[in-house]
């Protein structure tokens, strides 16, 4: 299980970095999104992989014997929501870049004065 998840992290992060290295703005941005997925999964694994109960207490408010670590989950929840905001912002920036410079080729944007 650990090996499987770690491999998934490796593949997702690798694909994300590959996308970020390309010259197409949209690919770079989507690569960023993919990267956040990979890192979220890595963060989750830091909390342990063993199967356990979800971090929801019973009606007396007492934790069960084996329960998932809630800390990575809280962190990832925050990251997912922020990720949406960042994604939207990046796309808006990319869109404006295209609007200003009429290209989405990252390489040809080098040295271009903004607005």
């Amino acid at each position, binding site marked *: *299980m*650990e*090996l*499987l*998840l*770690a*491999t*998934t*992290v*490796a*593949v*997702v*992060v*690798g694909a*994300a*970095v*590959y996308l970020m*290295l*390309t*010259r*197409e703005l*949209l690919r770079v941005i*989507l*690569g960023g*999104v*993919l990267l956040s*997925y990979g890192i*979220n*999964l890595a963060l*989750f*694994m830091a*909390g*342990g*992989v063993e*199967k356990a109960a979800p*971090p929801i*207490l019973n009606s*007396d*408010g007492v*934790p069960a014997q084996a329960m*998932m670590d*809630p*800390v990575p*989950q809280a962190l*990832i*929840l925050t990251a*997912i*929501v*922020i990720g949406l*905001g960042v*994604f*939207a*912002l990046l*796309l*808006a920036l*990319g*869109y404006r870049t295209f609007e200003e410079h009429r290209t*989405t080729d990252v*390489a040809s944007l*080098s040295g271009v004065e903004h607005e």
Partner: protein
Amino acid sequence: MTLSLHLIVLLPFAAAAAVPAVARRFPRSAGWLLLPLPAAIFASLLVWLPRVAAGETPAAAWAWVPAFGFEFSLALDGFGLLFGLLIAGIGTLVVAYAQSYLGPDEDRSRFYLALLLFMGAMLGVVLAENLLTLYMFWEITSISSFLLIGFWHTRTEAREGALKALLITVLGGLALLAGFLLLGLAAGTMSLRELADRAPAVVAHRYYPAIVVLILLGAFTKSAQVPFHLWLPGAMAAPTPVSAYLHSATMVKAGIFLAARMGAVLGGTELWFYTITAAGLATMVLGGFLAVQQRDLKALLAFSTVSQLGFIMAMFGFSTDAALAAGVLHLLNHGIFKGTLFMAVGIIDHATGTRDVGRLSGLGRAMPITAALTFLGALSMAGVPPLNGFVSKEMILDALLHPPVAPNGFTRALPVLAVLGSVFTTAYCLILTVKIFLGPPAAATPKPPHEAPARLWVPPALLATGIVLLGAAPQLAEGAVVVPALRALGAAADRVHVALWHGVTPALGMSGAALALGALLYWRLPRVLPILERLSAFPWNANAVYQGLLRAAEEGAQRWTRRLMTGRIRDYVLYVVGFSAVLIGVGLGRAGLPGLHQALGSLSPLGWVELVTCLVMMGGAFLAAAAVQRIAVALGVATVGFAMAVLWFLRDAPDLALTQTIVETVSIIPLFLAFGFMPALRHRWTGPRVHLGNGLAAAAVGLVVGAVTFLAQGNRLFDSIGTFFLENSYLLGGGRNVVNVMLVDFRGLDTVFETTVFGLAAMAVYALVASRRERGGVVRPRSPLMINPIILPAVTRVLFYLVLVFALYLFFRGHHHPGGGFAAGVMAASAVVLWALAFERTAALAMVPVHPRHLIATGLTLIGAVGLGAVALGYPFLTHGFGHVTVPGLGPVEWATATLFDLGVAFAVAGAIHWLVAAMSDGIPLEQEHIQAYARSRPEHQGGE
């Protein structure tokens, strides 16, 4: 009534802050208004004097960063007091002098601001009781000196001089900081008083040589010792009051001050003795040698200062009681006579319009008072009795004859060097006096020479009384300042005897010889000068080295910048990911193998559903990376996202699963923009080799991150704090969904910021995309996603409300079950998204009666109100309350302020996403009537054309 130590140091800073306001109101007389401040500090120090002389050391400390031993602690011992009197006393005179020296329209605001900044910093240096406090003020003196040298910033030499001074003193300052930190490590304390007790341990420490070298680098650069002397002549581009104050009387003595202070801890060793004495006497001879060649009076004084600083510095290498006494007294005397001389030269400059030695002559008749002042200062510097310079110079020469080590070639050379330096001193003092003031009046000066007004000569005249007074009655200084200063430096002070006349001694003979030979040199100067100039023209002088280094640094920086900063994002991403991968990879390779073994040994069983999910994720990632069509790339990313939601569900993270699903859905909105208005992807931009390179880099990064992930979960070095949250979630937070309780309660502050950031992102998107278009944008291509089938609108009319109800449901169960404010907020907004997909985007906006901006504001206000409510009740910010109330007919009902907080989160998140929809759908080409309908629905935007 006297000022406290902290007030003495901080008042000049406070006054500096007030200077701009004062100078704006009284642009021409700011100096007079500021005059009481240094005078009051001087008076306060005088009030402290009897107590300090009696052996007391008043001290005061404010804790600053106590964890690092960083205290803002001050102490006033005899040595600090001597300096404090110099700083405040000459400071008072300089403030008055500068008021008249500066032209009526010059920027007094900037001048006095920097001058007061310097005064406070310098007082801080000499009163500091903590190494780091001292260092901080030390650097402020460098900065204020930079500002003052560059005061006439339109002149090239002022800018270059300022930069040179800053570079050299600040580089020395950095060495000093390193030395202080090592010293602190070696001694285990940053307090100067405690350091003195630990001197033996420090001297024996293996860091000792490094400490000495680093601290002396700081001292030598500040006090312009060879080979760092070159900044001081350049600093003469400053207005003359500044030269008199910073660059002769006070700041340049900070290095000597430091050497003296540190001598109590680091002194008494051969390393200390040889380094300082050699540097000091070399500086003295070289400074004098260069001074006699100068044509500019201020440059002459600058090199003379260099020379004298070396002369004094040598004394603090000796560390004998006699040498310390001689050094301390000459320090005081030099401040007095050199300050006088500088101000006198400033008057000459003012009155004649030139400082060129060749053009000045016979000024004595026209400027008798200035002549008298200059004669007093110069003769004192040359060591003519009965002036103050004579007294301390005799003491230094005498001390030089009694070195602290066994006599050898070096020690025997010292008196010879001192006499040689003094010969130069005599010669340039004669230039200052005989050449300038006696003889026939000059043929032509830019202005006809005339005596200066009293307000210009009174300050130097006041200072000059010290020359006579401390010459005729040096014992005045002895008891009041010299002996307490020596005590502070760790000398057995009662053995010092300061007197004008010591009888016929070897030192007297040396003095006499220096005066006679110096007069001879002056007489034959026209003959000797060409020889001296040829000697000083050798190519490897310090200035050439400085210029070469400066150029090399600038060119090197430019070359590297050009090479690294290519402007291509790909390169930057490569730097970041490449360096991280290499660094982490190396770390893993060195430490990770045992961990790998352990991690491989304790694998948990593979689940089949998880396997399939992970395979889907990997497939999605591959698709995203390899796809040519952008829709395929987006699909690949979305596949990963949804598979991830499944994985969260499988691995017992229901909140994550829920949020991820909703977020994935809403992510369609930003993609509208990309697909509607950006061109299709092109893939022929890069060649196969670049692709291969990218692929290798990506594979390396993926491998490293995967390995770290794998090893990290195999190495549980400590218990997770998660246990605490599990056990206390219900007890302290009143909720059973631990993740939700963490977000709204335990880590509530994080959530406040996060929600704010989310709102800001929405605002930024709006600003980037929509607001521009309202001003009339470009014609846009038609959206490919303009789908308007029949079934979707029909279903949506029902689904819209169902989704809203579901959002409400998610919200209310959130504290105990999966759900909560984030999920509810995103879900509510997704109803709007749905509407936007099914109908016109504008119509979706009209479905919500509140402007999204107000929704965000309401949410954030609610969050803030909950947090502040706790404060109002006396609890820390964001403390939540919860409990049960019995409502008639309903039984016990739970309440929790955390719910209100969560409601705020939900509002803000929903508003933000709503606004994203608004912003992005603005981009979609609208039929004219839609635009009008939209404008009607948002009346606040109509007036903003």
